């Protein structure tokens, strides 16, 4: 390509002078467009909340605060209390996190730090495939394969050796809170793993090199230079997993036993907020029954928001402590 000569530069200047002055319209339009998109999300969330509130106003008036603190769910007598469902949602999600978080983060650490290169991509695809399994299929697999297996092998083992803990006591039926937690764990494992992997991959190599330069072993380098560095992001991955766990519906419904009760034993059936909605919404005919179900939806909505707020707070404290440590 020939270099630009003076003549060319003159020509360019001539064309430029004929062009309209640089317009800011495109920038503005882009700004407004993205703003509209972003606010649409906010408006949608508010509208959902509003709709749930309006849909359950009668029930809120009738049951008041008792809705959250009583345990009777009786569509015949029209007495409704959501406590066992709230309990079931929180406990099953907690079980899921206890199982899926170490598993997910360890898998991510293996994939980014330790695994031989040729194995990484196939493993990643496999994990992502797990996320693609429809939840109803997982549920069916849960009913026909997982629950009978759990009932025959791991549960009796836990009961024999850890039966002195109330959590692992009582008769074993098969479908139960524990099974519900395990199926949720399977469902949130891919999201926790793949997000954690992305985060660990984004840890700068300088971190690792610095650790090795100081004579760190592989474990020390991974623990101090990588995991600790990525703490915040990993926490975010866990919160995303928890968000999914709270709302997981179909597969859980199929294995949790669907009995609204609050008992210590994880071998007893439980119930979650999302499950009762999926189960009873279609056939609810009386007004107050429907309203109570709407209120269940509102409670689930509220819990999700609350969990997210709490995690933001927690994240901030983590940030604060690491900042002070950096100063020291």
């Amino acid at each position: 390509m020939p270099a630009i000569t003076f003549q060319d530069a003159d020509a360019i200047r001539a064309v430029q002078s004929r062009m309209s002055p640089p317009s800011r319209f495109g920038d503005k339009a882009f700004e407004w467009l993205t703003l509209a998109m972003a606010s649409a999300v906010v408006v949608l969330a508010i509208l959902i909340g509003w709709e749930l509130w309006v849909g359950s106003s009668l029930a809120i008036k009738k049951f008041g605060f008792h809705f959250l603190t009583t345990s009777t769910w009786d569509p015949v007598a029209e007495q409704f209390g959501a406590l066992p469902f709230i309990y079931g949602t929180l406990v099953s999600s907690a079980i899921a996190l206890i199982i899926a978080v170490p598993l997910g983060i360890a898998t991510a650490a293996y994939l980014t730090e330790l695994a031989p290169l040729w194995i990484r991509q196939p493993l990643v695809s496999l994990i992502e495939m797990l996320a693609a399994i429809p939840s109803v299929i997982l549920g069916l697999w849960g009913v026909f394969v997982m629950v009978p297996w759990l009932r025959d092998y791991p549960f009796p083992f836990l009961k024999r050796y850890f039966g002195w803990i109330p959590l692992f006591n009582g008769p074993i039926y098969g479908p139960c809170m524990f099974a519900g937690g395990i199926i949720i764990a399977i469902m949130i494992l891919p999201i926790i793993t793949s997000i954690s992997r992305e985060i660990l991959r984004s840890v700068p190599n300088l971190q690792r090199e610095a650790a090795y330069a100081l004579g760190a072993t592989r474990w020390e380098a991974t623990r101090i230079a990588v995991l600790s560095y990525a703490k915040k992001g990993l926490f975010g991955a866990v919160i995303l997993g928890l968000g999914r766990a709270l709302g997981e519906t179909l597969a859980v419904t199929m294995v949790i036993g669907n009995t609204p009760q609050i008992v210590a034993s994880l071998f007893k059936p439980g119930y979650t907020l999302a499950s009762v909605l999926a189960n009873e919404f279609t056939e609810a005919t009386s007004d107050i029954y429907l309203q109570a179900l709407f209120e269940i939806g509102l409670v689930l909505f509220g819990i999700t928001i609350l969990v997210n707020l709490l995690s933001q707070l927690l994240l901030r404290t983590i940030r604060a402590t690491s900042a002070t440590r950096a100063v020291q």
Partner: protein
Amino acid sequence: MMKFRRRIFLGLAIAFGMSTTASAQMMINGAGATFPYPIYSKWFDAYTKVDPSVRFNYQSIGSGGGQKQILSQTVDFGASDGPMSDENLAKAPGKILHIPTVAGAVVITYNLPGNPALKLDGDTIAGMYLGRIKKWNDPKLTALNPGVKLPDQDIVVVHRSDGSGTTFIFTDYLSKVSSEWKSKAGNNTSVNWPTGIGGKGNEGVSGQVKQTPGAVGYVELIYAKQNKMPYADVKNSAGEFVKASPDSVIAALATAEIPDDFRFSMTNAPGKDAYPIAGATWLLVYQQQKDATKGKKLIEFLKWALTKGETMAKDLDYASLPESVEQRVLKRIDEIKM
């Protein structure tokens, strides 16, 4: 060029032809019960040959949804496994007619070693579902089943976790045979179960029963048959043990007391051959139809379903209406006004 033009012409002709048949075709919308969905869809399919100008669009969204949609007039007919309550009927902008179509049995299925044939009565079923009868070798069960070796095994009670017409029929029966059940749990599409684990849908309950040794559950007859699960003979109010079948449900229909608004319950029917745990399903239509041509087509279809369509019922393990009831329903259909 000529060829090309002809092809365009042909394409246009086909497009126009299709659009004209589409506009001549009337779409009748319905929504509701899932239990009769297999036979309804068969009817709608067969009816296109009887009257090609009508197409049906039926959404099996559940009885609650069916009642809601007919009340808000978003569909031309609703469908429900339970009759509408007085409270809900009062909300309707016009008079809603209940048209019973078919009936079905709910059977008690179980999972025992060797799956012996069992006999049960209402008191025992209620006892199991109340959590009073806890073991399979309970004296009540052994007394009903002389000669059957029942194991010393815990009874694992399985019920539906989702709201359903099946549960409505089952709890309707239990409320009739057990005053304790009536006061403790009562009758609805979903109740406050005293004991047991919940499975979602017929497939959930049958799956749970099949997987759990010592389990007992209730499902629609067709599910027990398809899954080759055993189901118990149940003692009816005449004191006979009856096996569930379309015939024994028809016998129940024939002897059940049916009021003129057709909002009836046919559980625990008095007939000697009547199977006691059974229920009908209804189509819900307004007596005063808004759209005259649509109303006329709907009436034609209802009459066809009750007279000709009924013959398909037995293959799908539904019971058709007996002659006496059919005549009364046909008369009611004639009262639909345009």
